[in-house]
């Protein structure tokens, strides 16, 4: 379904969707972050990319898997805690972040479907916003099979046409959202369609960064496991978790019991994001650590994204959002690392 909506009417559309829980990027200091919309009147789609991607809504940093309790030693009870059944809409999802969800879909799908993830994923509609201008100076979606107006993973893609939005729905979930406010939408004219094409073409040119010959990288990486390259590249790494926590495709997690009462025992089993850059991530309880240093951990991050994942799912596990570059405290630049790897030894 392809429609056009005047910018003025946008808040009215949002208002019509009141039965949904709605998220929109909101400015907080110098940055943008997703928040639940409380007031549909104040809506601003002119934003840079958020610090955290919408991953944090579908796969929250902390979620309770189950609760346990004993009234005395004998009666131990456990109680599954699934996310609440609530239909949600996330507005303004950047195509890279939407694509990232298609990648986490692969991980949380497969033989064991993750019920927590899928419950949220299925009940959430993603309304994307095409990047007419790149939302970050470090965007490089074109180099990783993405595009600034990619529809992958989205239910609706909105493109700013100046005084109006072009909105295209790709799924039933998307159609439903448009149908809730039918009167506000018009069918696009031929000119509007042409404008759209033009904007889309121009937007690609504005992307400032790229990886050359991305395709050559996975096979190259495959032979670089034992290379001293990783020691050199990781010298300045400070072992923080920014690159992975901010990454829209990273999905690693930890499971811990949080005890609220120790006698009688009561508590929750909690899943939290975890991070391959943290030392104890892979450390056995014996103290043995298969990835003992930051070189091994940087290698894991790069290989996972550009070799293992490619081998397993035929996709890069990177959508070029540029967050890890922009926020790395010491300027480690994944584009540079990959290009250096590609050219390493040659």
């Amino acid at each position, binding site marked *: 379904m392809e429609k056009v909506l005047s910018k003025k009417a946008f808040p009215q559309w949002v208002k019509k969707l009141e039965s949904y829980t709605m998220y929109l990027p909101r400015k907080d200091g110098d940055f943008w972050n997703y928040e639940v919309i409380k007031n549909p009147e104040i809506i601003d789609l002119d934003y840079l990319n958020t610090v955290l991607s919408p991953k944090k809504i579908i796969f929250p940093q902390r979620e309770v898997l189950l609760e346990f309790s004993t009234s005395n030693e004998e009666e131990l009870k456990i109680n599954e805690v699934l996310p609440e059944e609530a239909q949600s809409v996330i507005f303004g999802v950047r195509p890279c972040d939407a694509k990232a969800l298609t990648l986490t879909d692969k991980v949380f799908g497969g*033989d064991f479907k993750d019920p927590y993830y899928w419950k949220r994923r299925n009940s959430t509609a993603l309304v994307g916003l095409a990047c007419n201008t790149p939302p970050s100076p470090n965007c490089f979606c074109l180099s990783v099979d993405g595009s600034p107006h990619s529809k992958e993973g989205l239910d609706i893609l909105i493109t700013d046409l100046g005084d109006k939005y072009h909105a295209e729905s790709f799924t039933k979930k998307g159609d439903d959202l448009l149908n809730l406010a039918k009167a506000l939408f018009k069918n696009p004219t031929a000119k509007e369609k042409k404008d759209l094409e033009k904007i889309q073409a121009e937007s690609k040119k504005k992307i400032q960064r790229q990886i050359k010959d991305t395709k050559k990288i996975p096979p190259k990486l495959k032979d670089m496991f034992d290379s001293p390259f990783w020691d050199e590249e990781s010298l300045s790494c400070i072992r923080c978790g920014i690159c992975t926590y901010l990454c829209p495709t990273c999905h690693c997690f930890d499971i811990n019991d949080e005890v609220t009462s120790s006698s009688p025992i009561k508590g929750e089993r909690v899943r939290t994001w975890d991070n391959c850059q943290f030392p104890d991530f892979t450390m056995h309880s014996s103290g043995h650590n*298969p990835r003992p240093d930051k070189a091994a951990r940087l290698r894991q991050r790069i290989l996972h994204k550009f070799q293992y994942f490619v081998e397993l799912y035929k996709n890069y596990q990177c959508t070029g959002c540029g967050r890890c570059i922009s926020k790395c405290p010491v300027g480690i630049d994944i584009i540079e690392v990959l290009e250096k790897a590609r050219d390493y030894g040659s």
Partner: protein
Amino acid sequence: MDHNTYIPKLAKIIEIKEEVGGARPIKTFRTQFLSTNNFSFHSGQCAMLSVFGKGESIISISSSPLLKDYLQFSILKMGRVTSSLHEMQVGDIIGIRGPYGNSFPVEDWKGKNIIFIGGGIGLAPIWSVLNTALSIKKDYGDLMLIYGARTSKDLVFQEELEELRKRMPVHLSIDVEEPDWKEFVGFVPQNVTDKKPSPKNAIAITCGPPIMIKFVIKALEGLGFKDEQIYTTVENKMKCGIGKCGRCNIGVHYVCKDGPVYSWAEFKKLPQEY
């Protein structure tokens, strides 16, 4: 929606046996599910055990899948969860989810000789497949166990081993000389070389500390075993057991899901990161 695999089934500890004491104690637990048991598994698979309030730990199942009465786990006291397991008593409740991972291709091995080679707690995963093979012994050729530990006190399943001797050759070893020790003194790989199992129509399964595995494989290669004839199991830190939490991978392999059982032929190809 599929069954939520994160929710463990509750099970009662019905028997606890102290295998090894001292600073690195090992206990064997037998557990029974509280509700009806539809937990079916294959030898080599693991289960995620919960001590509620402490967390989870992945443990290989040491009983044979043919035994339906209980699940058996032999556990070395190592960290937070295993320490609380060691504090538990008969009647206490734990959680079990799984089974996870792949298993030994016992069906493919029918008609073959099997040599089981274990070190320390590494006998636990072997125990399941050994007992399976033993219970349908006619399907297999000659069975042999080569097992060793640091001292005679560190050997697990000591009573069962005595029973086992009646049914198949059992070769034990300890690392250093002890009075009254009549069997081999030395490391497990040396015992392998010493006992010279034949590679002919044989499969060797080895489990134990990484350094032992490495040298057992060398010893087996020395005896003429091919990579495809050697099987081993791998351990890594795990949280989910289903290939999602991201920490147990060796290259593209998630040990929890694609392992823990590997033929040496497959395993050789993985990056050396374990």
